[in-house]
């Protein structure tokens, strides 16, 4: 009896494993980025002044990218960050995203990027983007692909000047970036 039960269990567990493998299709690049964006919030501290009160929402702003915003909204459904509910805001104008805590700029690049980033300058907003030269232009985290994986680089000095504290764990994972002031 026991042997039969053991064999049954084994078959069941193998089937279960198989089914999870089947269910886990490789996530899309946007999905990974959305998850990363969400997880950045967990490794970052904002100053208390960034929130209206203790229960106010944690706001993630997405600039001009409805598709990404849709993915992100799916991901963060019913989730919380630092004890706060997550709210996704999509807008074309950076001015309207000044109250966000994280702003994802997507692939937008210079010169629009420069003006966008200057809008968020000195504000406690974690700016995340894909454009090359994003961090050099004053962005804080930039996604880039490496060995079929999404990696990121962080401008820690910029984050510090914005009053945001990024966890060393996160910094350790990032490709270190030194702001080359005066280059641009």
């Amino acid at each position, binding site marked *: 009896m026991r042997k039969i039960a053991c064999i049954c269990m084994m078959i069941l567990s193998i089937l279960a494993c198989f089914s999870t493998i089947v269910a886990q299709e490789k996530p899309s690049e946007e999905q990974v980025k959305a998850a990363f964006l969400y997880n950045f919030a*967990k490794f970052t501290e904002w100053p208390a002044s960034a929130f209206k009160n203790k229960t106010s929402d944690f706001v993630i702003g997405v600039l001009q990218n409805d598709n990404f915003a849709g993915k992100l909204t799916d991901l963060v459904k019913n989730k919380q960050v630092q004890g706060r509910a997550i709210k996704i805001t999509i807008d074309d104008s950076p001015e309207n995203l000044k109250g966000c805590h994280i702003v994802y700029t997507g692939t937008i690049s210079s010169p629009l990027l420069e003006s966008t980033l200057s809008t968020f300058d000195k504000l406690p907003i974690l700016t995340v983007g894909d454009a090359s030269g994003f961090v050099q232009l004053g962005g804080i985290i930039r996604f880039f692909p490496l060995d079929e994986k999404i990696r990121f680089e962080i401008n820690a000095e910029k984050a510090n000047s914005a009053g945001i504290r990024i966890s060393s764990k996160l910094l350790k*994972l990032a490709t270190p970036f030194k702001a080359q002031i005066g280059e641009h």
Partner: protein
Amino acid sequence: MLSKWINACSIKSKLINIVMISSCLGLIVAGTAFIVFDRISFKQTIVHKMETLADIIGSNCTASITFDNRRDATETLDALAAEKHILSANVRDKTGAVFAFYNRVGQNFDLDTSYNRNYGYEFKNDFIVFHRPIYLENEIVGSIALKADLEELKARLRYNVTVVAIIIMIVGLLTLVLVTRLQKFISDPVLKLASLAEQISKSKDYTLRAPKESHDEVGKLVETFNAMLSEIHERDMQLLHAQDRLEMRVLERTTELEKEIQERRSVEDKIRESLAEKEVLLKEIHHRVKNNLQVITSLLNLQSRKIKDPTTLEMFRDSQGRVKSMALIHEKLYRSSDLSRINFADYADNLAKYLLTSFKMETCIVRVQNMAEPIYLSVDTAVPCGLILNELISNCLKHAFTNRSEGQITIKFYHISQDEFVLQVSDNGVGIPGNIDYMNTTSLGMQLVNTLTSQLDGKIELLQDMGTTFAITFSEPKYKKARVENVA
């Protein structure tokens, strides 16, 4: 078994053994308890340490897992190389797939078994397996498993065992030294008491006393022992006294008895002397009586020579015979060893011979056949018996063989019962003429016979068959016999 062995030991070794066994047992129990307790607490320490380590590593891996950076996670795990007891470790993601792992040099990745278990830890023989979840903002993002060897635990056990063993040895040695010194307080008084008891039992000297050194039970024992000794001593002294007194008494009594015996002996000697004197005297008396009677016989004999008348001569001769018969009795008496009784058969022999010679039978040859049994008679009975015999034989010689050339006289004397005798004199002569009544006769001889017979309370029978037979039956008078016995 144990009690037998303990009982066979001396008090000293008993004390040492008891203390040593109990202290060693105590030390072993305490040491074991310490080792067990220390092991348990050290295990807790290890668990705590591992927990902390797992949490730190797990926490350091949160970002790696979250951002799918295996290289970073592996680097984090590689930091475990500093912890030499960690054999292997791995980090899994939310789905349970291995995300990163670490193996110490020479170790194989074998933590698959640990994964399916619940979170927590498990001690195996040689290692401990640890499985902890990794949290990120209250959400489990993965898990970390650690496998560590227990060398530390083993080393600590070895160290603890060594330390405890050394402590037990040192304390045991100290205890042994202390006990060997201190046991004297208990065993010495007892041993002293025992050796004193032995000494006393050998020397029997009950004046010895044990010194009292302590006020405990042994001290009490010493006191009691001493009290017992003094009691025994006292009793001994009393016994000695009593013995002395008894010996004195015995000595006194012995002296008295010896004196008494001496006295008795001297009295006996005196009695014996006096008896001998009396015997001599008695012999002398009998001798004198016999001599006097002999003198009378001789006088009668001298006198009778001048007598011509045959009747008178016969009377003289008869008288001579009667005196002789009495003299013969006295002669027999003083010759006998007894002095009071005579063998009547001997007497009858002598008397018959005398009578035969005194009657000078010329015409007739008479023979006397003495068939008397050797019966002893006292002088009181012997005298009348002798006189009767004299008369009867004389009668025979005078009358029986008239006109005969030869004749025979038979004398018989025998018992018919214990005290009754028969004296019988027979002849084969002419017999008594019918006109003569022997009971009523003028003959002095027959009168004498009758008188003497009645004196003896006896009776006479006359048988006239082939001659004449006189049989006199009598008994020795009782009072006379008693007197005779007393004298004997």
